[in-house]
């Protein structure tokens, strides 16, 4: 079974700068790009670029309030991202369990039946 994480979502949350921006939005609600720029170690221009990516991924929405444009997180989409990430970790757990089962069965079989003749190298030499 595979887990397909939506590319846009994946690349949006995989960048630590953007996670920092998301963090600030989660903690502070609707704020402007200028406000964000005052709270991160990167430029206003970089903040704007990150907001564009986050908006494209649907993680952030913007609205006009007077002369200002305010950004806020979209909780539904963040929930989706969270689930996708948890699924990905679960997929690796399943794969590791399968590897364990296969390797242990192969090893137990090799011990019982002696190494196969076609195996080259000394891998199975010592028992």
């Amino acid at each position: 079974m595979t887990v397909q994480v939506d590319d846009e979502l994946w690349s949006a949350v995989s960048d630590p700068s953007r996670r920092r921006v998301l963090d600030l939005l989660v903690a502070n609600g609707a704020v402007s790009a200028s406000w964000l720029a005052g709270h991160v170690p990167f430029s206003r221009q970089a903040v704007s670029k990150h907001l564009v990516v986050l908006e494209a991924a649907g993680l952030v929405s913007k609205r006009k309030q007077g002369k200002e444009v305010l950004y806020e997180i979209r909780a539904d989409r963040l929930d989706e991202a969270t689930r996708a990430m948890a699924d990905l970790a679960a997929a690796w757990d399943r794969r590791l369990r399968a590897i364990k089962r296969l390797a242990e069965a192969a090893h137990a079989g090799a011990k019982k039946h002696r190494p196969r003749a076609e195996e080259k190298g000394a891998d199975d030499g010592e028992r």
Partner: protein
Amino acid sequence: MPGLAIERDVLIEAPAEVVWRTITEPDQMSLWFADRVQLVIEAGAHGYLGFGDQGGPVVVETVDPPKRFSFRWNHPRGEEPVVGNSMLVEFTLTPEGDERTRLRVVESGHELRDWPEAEQQRYADEHREGWGEFFDRLVVVLSEQRSR
């Protein structure tokens, strides 16, 4: 590295050589990983992993038997996978006694970029957590906000 990373490990009752074959031989890989595995285990080799009617290219990065095996995937079609456009999957095999191996897998994403080094370091120090903790925390905050 505070990038996106998933880390998992498992203790296997088999020598590293046996585990190595399980994780790198294409016919074995198709038993625990993709349905279709077209892959030559050689650094730089390009292959394909098929999952049902989906799938994608994969490029082998490190082959160091029986200790380390890594590949990159999830990069945009038509592009070479590099840091920043792909996910790196790294397997590390560590013997624990004669017939026991700790297998660790790390899948990691985009590393820090576009920042001055001092800022990267500061951020790394402040954010030792991976995405897992980040999202756990988000979920808590979000549910708190909703119940208000």
